[in-house]
């Protein structure tokens, strides 16, 4: 979206999803290696790994697609 500048809301969204996804994947891998004593229901599905990965990939896609350089080029091309 046009914001009058080079940083799009979608870029911020990408940062938010990507960083959170990275934290969650890292925690999931740690738990897979060192299983916690207190487990949540369906912990055997390792939701934190695959859900964190989904968020991380989505975040990266947003960051690349709406990167400041691309936005600048898009605005200059108008």
């Amino acid at each position, binding site marked *: *979206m046009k914001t*009058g500048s080079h940083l799009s809301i979608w870029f911020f969204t990408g940062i*938010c999803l990507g*960083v959170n996804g990275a934290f*969650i994947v890292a925690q999931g891998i740690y738990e897979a290696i060192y299983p916690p004593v207190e487990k*949540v229901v369906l912990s055997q599905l390792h939701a*934190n790994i695959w859900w*964190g990965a989904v968020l991380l990939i989505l975040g990266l896609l947003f960051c690349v697609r709406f990167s400041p350089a691309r936005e600048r080029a898009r605005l200059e091309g108008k």
Partner: protein
Amino acid sequence: MNPALLMLSSSTLVHLSPVDLVIIVFYFALVLGIGLYLKEQANTGEDFFMAGREMTAWVAGLAFLSANLGSLELMGWAGNSYKYGILAAHWYWIGAIPSMLFLALVMMPFYYVCKTHSVPGYLKLRFGVGAQAISSISFAVMTVLMSGINMYAMAVVMKVVLGWNMHFSIWVSAGTVAVYVALGGLRSAIFNEVLQFFLIWAGALLIPILGLIEAGGWNGLQAKILQNLTELHMANPGSYTHLWSTLGNFNDNPMGINWAGIVFGLGAVIAMGYWTTDFLVVQRVLAAKDLRSAELAPIIGAAFKMCVPFIVILPGLLGLALLRDPHTGQLIRLVPADVAWSPAGQAQGLHGYDEVLPLMLARYCGPGLLGLGITALIAGFMSGMAGNVSAFTTVWTYDIYGTLINKNATDDFKVKMGRWVTVIGVIVSIFTAYIAAGKPSIMDYVQSLFSFFIAPLFGTVLLGMLWKRATPAGGWTGLLAGTLSSVGMYAWVKLDPNAVRYVALSMDAQDQAQNMFRALWCCLICIIVTVVVSMLTKPKPDSELKDVVYGLTPIPKVEHVSIFHSPIFWGVVVAVIFIVLQIIFW
């Protein structure tokens, strides 16, 4: 005794790990960073109050939806679905979709063409200063009260769920909202609403996915609910998973309502009033960059709104089906909040209906995912507060100060005032939060007062847009009569509980059913009074109604676009999916 104080001694639902805290702190840093970044783009009144009117349909649509998708909404409706079953989904489907489409395709052109800054601003153009004054003052007072009460509710939730100090929650969240809205204005609020939209889905979507896996799919869920409610000897256990088939009689469903209350009270009045005239949500669409985007935005919002029951209603139903004591295997039965928060309830470890979403979150989400879920709740609360504060700031600056106090204020002065009023609004909200902490019942009263105003306002705006004979005197007297009649019916039932048989047509009517019928009657009273007074008073000449009334407003031709960019096409698609959902869950 104050429930909040009782909870100080209660145990918490979940415990955060370091990674959860990092995720929460990252969110606060990000929203403050966005506020600082957007400050340089909020220099004029149009920038600060209307986000420059340059939002795309997607951004305006997601913000339009998110302004309503606060945490109180999520937790409250998850609790309601535990209490009333799938009937609660009506508030997301018939209680939202038709009215959002109506806003997009019928009302939006009038709002957009007249270039108003607010809904009270439209009333000024259509009915004059009288209706605008009633509308803007009521809206400003109610908005700032609601902001404070939401803040108090957030502090209570953080206390119950995490054991956080209530003063800490109130001051940190209020301070953050004040900073980012005062810096970036509506644009900042909208940015954070879009962010909140993604956080809510990212944080809540796992609950229904894992819940359905555990329950054995939708059929397994239905069977478990039926089995559990039969075991608890609940009335109509089969009605909890049916949307329409139990609405023939008041006493066939857990809500004590019939189809007429849902269709006319909820769908035709409350939903229409809220989604088409509540400036809190309409302001987001007014920020769209052109008319086509403004029409598409509510349709995009409607498409996602149809999906929200998946992360709100389904967790409530999953709670009914799956929550059992891990040690004894006994069903865990959630209870009303006042029972759960009583000393006896605390001693027994009872939980309120509204705790079903955090309970399900704690059930499936370990470290990391839990932090994301809690961040989603915090983001929901803060964006709800920011929405209230930004709408309050606009209405105060343009409709109260700019119209009633100083008509000659410069644009630069309005921006400065907007920043200060944002901070003052937050401070008043904090004050309100502490009042609410001392008097818990004030939450119910103010939320009811808020709804009193919305239902008659819809009647006034609708007649104003579609009937050119409606006069200024008819407009403000109808609005006043509708509001007073709604307050009167509410007081009548409070003083004499038997009056519910007249107001809501049944002694079985629960709170939600009473709200539906009260809204229906007060809207009808508003319309009747407006029509009668208008017929007895002199109408405005047509020349003064240009751009505000149907038939006298030239709607700009939308540029030639393909069918896939047409608002009408997507409106039809959303309407068809809405109908299919009603049939599937009939």
